[in-house]
């Protein structure tokens, strides 16, 4: 990785592993805007404490693994780099319990959510919230391993599976009320202090993730702006995808994603999302380089 960027063309380091369409779109958008992009393949990279200083350097993280992304962010921030998104944001967004806590502390509306560690406590929560409930892993994405549980038999079966899966994350039971959404959820793309685009994801599956075949439709950003920006501020801000549920006329925050995917969202919204992100990164890089010079 380079040292601090020289004056002139802004320099952005992008740490990535698997190249998805998003990374290619970001490389192109950054280069079209005159940025010098240094691509670093994370599996072939290592960090040594105290070996380098990176004041003035801006790094975009585009790695897939939450654990890997958080480790890299912490390491580079220790060296003085500006990391987008920051280690704090990755930590909060990468753990649903942490996200929920941050939203609650900021008073941002979200579905009723509870955390428990035993079967009887989860059962008590379910009776309070009402069946069905939704049980989610605290770490995970793309709708993976999320269960909608309609009764105690289903709850017992899933908890037994989680117990035998092992791993400390599976022993934290993250429980949400089931929001009877209208066949879709909403997503607001937040870049800095703006909602640059919004979509609805519509699908047959109750988990309306695009990874599960949901169809994307462009939406006006206006109705989502206030709550989406509040959610983004609550987790620390940056480049974020804020997922929302409609509960009657109310909007609730379901998740805030720090490693957003947008390949299917520019066309239906008519918004150049990678371009918006690239412009923000360049402005942040220039500001940071100036700040430390």
């Amino acid at each position, binding site marked *: 990785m380079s040292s601090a960027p020289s004056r002139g063309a802004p320099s952005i380091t992008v740490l990535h592993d698997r190249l998805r369409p998003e990374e290619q779109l970001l490389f192109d958008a950054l280069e079209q805007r005159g940025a010098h992009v240094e691509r670093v393949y994370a599996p072939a990279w290592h960090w040594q404490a105290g070996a380098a200083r990176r004041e003035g350097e801006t790094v975009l993280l585009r790695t897939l693994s939450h654990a890997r992304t958080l480790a890299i962010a912490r390491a580079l921030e220790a060296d003085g780099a500006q990391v987008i998104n920051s280690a704090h944001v990755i930590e909060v967004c990468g753990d649903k319990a942490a996200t929920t806590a941050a939203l609650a502390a900021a008073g941002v509306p979200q579905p009723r959510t509870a955390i428990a560690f035993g079967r009887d406590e989860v059962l008590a929560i379910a009776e309070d919230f009402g069946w069905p409930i939704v049980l989610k892993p605290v770490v995970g*994405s*793309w709708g993976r391993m999320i269960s909608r549980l309609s009764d105690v038999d289903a709850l017992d079966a899933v908890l037994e599976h989680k117990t035998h899966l092992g791993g400390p994350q599976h022993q934290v039971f993250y429980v949400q009320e089931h929001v009877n959404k209208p066949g879709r959820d909403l997503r607001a793309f937040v870049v800095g202090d703006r909602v640059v685009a919004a979509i609805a994801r519509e699908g047959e599956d109750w988990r309306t993730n695009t990874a599960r075949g949901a169809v994307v439709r462009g939406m006006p950003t206006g109705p989502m702006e206030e709550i989406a920006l509040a959610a983004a501020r609550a987790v620390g801000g940056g480049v974020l995808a804020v997922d929302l549920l409609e509960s009657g006329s109310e909007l609730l925050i379901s998740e805030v994603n720090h490693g*957003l995917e947008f390949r299917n969202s520019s066309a239906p919204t008519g918004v150049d999302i990678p371009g918006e992100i690239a412009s923000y990164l360049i402005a942040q890089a220039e500001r940071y380089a100036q700040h430390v010079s």
Partner: protein
Amino acid sequence: MQTVSTPYGRLDLDPTALQLGELVVSDDGVELEVVSLNPLQFEIAPEEAEDWGE
């Protein structure tokens, strides 16, 4: 273009245009990730892992 043999099938590709992290598909239908350019190396690309995501 060049034909490269891997344990997972053959690949017809231009080695000079490859990027680290890029996915390619062998003639056996196996999705491979480019993990080294020099020497050229590929590994089977898992579809997902537990903590992968957005």
